[in-house]
């Protein structure tokens, strides 16, 4: 208990000092260092902590290097001691095996703690909203199962609400990244990964494709617009009233390799995202996914989806392949 408090105490001071330095030193174009939501905030803190911990080692080492190289240079009349046979000191060696071990232990503690934290909804007080993300060649498609609308290459979200992104692909692997809101997650065909992000305040944030996917990859950038809840609801209404619905044929068109502008759809075919995931799922449980009526909205149904995605991935037994995706 007290150990944890102590660490938090240290952490606070370190953050206070370094935060000031970094914030004043960095303009707003340093997206990663300007967190705009709790996830990016956590990651920012870790970046600071890890920077300090490694600095604790490397700054003295660099200084020591400069000192040694200068002091023991081979010039006539150098008075520093010269002991060509001095090649072993258990004390010294124990010290420099132990110092890195301590640093790694500290760093490991923060790392593991936050790995678990980031798997969860960052804002326990507000129920998360789900948005499904599909990476295509070469555009991002966002489907909103709760609102039943869809967009391409731009994303609107309510500020202050945690968003649960389910991320998949119907094209080569990509990675979904909005640095100001938080770190990225891979978009892979045949599975759905899960990522929570939240924008604390309204604003526009840059989103990137970050895993190379071919010719149009550099054009797969998008904006994330966070709006107050009521404005977001108005936008949804507007979309419902003014834009066409996406048909299967529209989707097939969208799937074709190419670069697209922003598009908005007032609806999308039911269960489309689940179908995209299931399309490349493994044979033995494919029919199960296909038969299931797709979920409208709400928690209960997404729980069911989660079960069958889990099944799909059960057979993977290499690390990195057993996604416990889509479940809470």
């Amino acid at each position: 208990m007290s150990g944890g408090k102590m660490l938090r105490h240290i952490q606070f001071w370190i953050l206070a000092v370094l935060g000031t330095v970094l914030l004043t030193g960095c303009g707003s174009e340093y997206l990663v260092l300007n967190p705009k939501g709790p996830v990016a905030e956590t990651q920012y803190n870790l970046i600071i902590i890890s920077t300090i911990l490694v600095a604790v080692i490397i700054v003295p080492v660099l200084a020591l290097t400069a000192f040694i190289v200068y002091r023991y240079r081979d010039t006539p009349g150098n008075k520093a001691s010269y002991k060509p046979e001095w090649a072993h000191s258990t004390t010294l060696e124990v010290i420099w095996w132990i110092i890195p071990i301590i640093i790694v232990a500290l760093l490991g503690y923060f790392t593991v703690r936050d790995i678990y934290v980031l798997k969860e909804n960052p804002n326990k007080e507000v129920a998360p909203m789900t948005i499904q993300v599909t990476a295509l060649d070469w555009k991002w498609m966002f489907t909103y199962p709760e609102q039943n609308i869809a967009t391409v290459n731009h994303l609107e979200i309510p500020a202050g609400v945690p968003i649960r992104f389910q991320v998949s692909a119907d094209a080569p692997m990509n990675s979904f990244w909005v640095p100001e809101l938080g770190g990225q997650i891979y978009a892979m065909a045949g599975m759905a990964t899960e990522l929570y992000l939240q924008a604390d305040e309204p604003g526009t944030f840059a989103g990137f494709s970050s895993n190379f996917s071919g010719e149009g990859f550099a054009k797969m950038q998008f904006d994330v617009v966070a709006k107050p809840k009521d404005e977001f609801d108005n936008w949804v209404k507007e979309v419902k009233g003014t834009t066409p619905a996406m048909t299967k044929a529209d989707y097939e068109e969208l799937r074709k390799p190419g670069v697209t502008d922003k598009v908005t759809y007032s609806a999308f075919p039911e269960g489309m995202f689940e179908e995209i995931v299931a399309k490349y799922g493994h044979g033995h449980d494919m029919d199960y996914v296909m038969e299931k009526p797709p979920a409208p909205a709400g928690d209960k149904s997404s729980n069911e989806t989660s079960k069958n995605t889990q099944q799909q991935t059960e057979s993977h037994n290499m690390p990195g392949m057993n996604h416990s995706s889509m479940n809470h």
Partner: protein
Amino acid sequence: MWENIKDFASTFFVTGDPLIYGADVSIVLSMVAIVFVLTKYKKWGWLWREWLTTVDHKRIGIMYLIASLLMLFRGGVDALLMRLQLAFPNVEFLNSDHYNAIFTTHGTIMILFMAMPMMFALFNMVVPLQLGARDVAYPFLNALSFWLFMLGAMLFNISFVIGGSPDAGWLSYPPLSQNEFSPGPGQNFYIWGIQISGIGSLATGINFIVTILKMRAPGMKLYKMPLFSWSVLSSCIMIIFAFPILTVTLALLFLDRFAGAHFFTMDGGGNPMMYLNLIWMWGHPEVYIVVVPAFGIFSEIVATFARKTIFGYKSMVWAMMVIAIASFFTWAHHFFTMGTSASVIAFFAISTMIIGIPTGVKVFNWLFTMYRGRISFQQPMLWTIAFIPCFVIGGATGVMLAVAPADYQYHNSYFLVAHFHQVLIGGVVFGYLAGIYYWWPKLFGFKLDEKLGKWGFWFWNIGFYVCFMPQYALGFMGMTRRYYTYGWDRGWADMNLVSTVGAFMMGIGFIFQVWQIAYSIKHGERDTTGDPWNGRTLEWSIPSPAPFYNFAVVPEVKEADDWWATKQAKANGTYKEQPAKLEPIHMPKNSGIPFIMANFWFLVGFGFTFGWVWMAVIGFIGVFACMWARSFQYDTDYYVPVEEVRRTEASLGRVV
């Protein structure tokens, strides 16, 4: 008929880009020039007898070195083209496809066809000499390894003018690298180029393990072995466990593309993520395979130029062995963002940090070798001293990347690009360059010019920081690697321009080094002593350049740093001269089979690349015939008579 030929030629040759036409012309011209010179000066026989069929580890080392420098040039030009494209926003110098091909070949060439052969060059040039051996354990296999590497590299490189370059990234992740998204021969060139040279690398790994375990001079216990040889052992142990994984992975990818298999496809039950796991199970050890020998080189150089015994020898050995083992348990840190379970991420995050511990220990040991020493700043030492801060910073950002949740923000950004260039250039390239400067006199009999070398050194070093420090910043700005262009609105322009300037400074540094070699061939300081740096290990006890049998008399080793101890004893007058007893020396005979067999492998690769199975079959038959022929060869070695040894030694100024 004519139409058919035209049709074929337009798909076979890469067309439509002035840069490539330029390259075509220069390739043809240089080939013509080479043929002309060889014919005019009647050098074909010399080329065949002295080089193409040689099994001498030193000559093989020299060929590796030349090949790797050529590849460094090619990979460097790729880098400069990329930096030109990114110097300003919205540049239209390269289009997306061309840029993608260039970063793919840049990465592949730099790791597999530059770093690996440069490493093997050093293995070959140094290890047998350090051990007091006359050659490696299997000289024939060694030659085969070289030619497999060479022909694999050629296969990969011709993709640039024939058929089209691969363009799915240096590790060719599927599904992008599958037929559906990357049709055409480019990916096949990638697969077969690496596959063929990879077989050679695996064989080299086996060869040097046996050499080190079995061919040390009498009296050289493992704990008296020089640290470079230890690092080679560590590296080779990693090679024999990692390279078979690469062989399988590439074979499976090829089966997907060629036979319609479903290992890594999106449909048919394939699993692209399995490829990521497999390729990094090789790929992560691979980066330690190339960096650990650099550690060995630094250990030799620091001790020599600080004129002091290496500090913490046993720590150094154990650190390298821990690294070799731990390197196999960190692969998943290359895809923390895969959304896998928290416990898996935690395991790989911690294991990655742990590998930093032995690395840190080594840095301390180098520092304390210099402490209470006397440091002289000749070229090998300059690169070593430059390495320490560069690698320490690169290592630190590596530990930061191991912090998995933070990695979600760094992954695939320029922060990552800056990190791995810092450890690979600051660690591997600096290390190999230091090693080349250090052992150059032993191989060629003269030193490389200091003045030109220092110009090269400073351009490389300052250029490095100018090029890569801004890239860390770009990573924080959200710039993703492999974007072929970007807009003004991101604010990425300034840092990119600075970075490009730095890249060109490194290019200038390289030009200085080429100039330095050319200049030193004529004017370099000749090494008449065989021990130009006041060295510590056995290779400095023999004349430079080393005679083909290395040691006229196999030395008896009593100490670690035996040659240093001998010199000390001579100075103190406590040295007892042993009467040297010359004996006939047992040496392997040259053989043309490695060269021929590698060419048949080339046919296999080329045939499969274009789907011409008949050609691949011819290639396989040829490979098989070569193996068969070799199996029936019993007359594979000979003895050098005492008289010839005496004559050779006398011509090198040694009386035996």
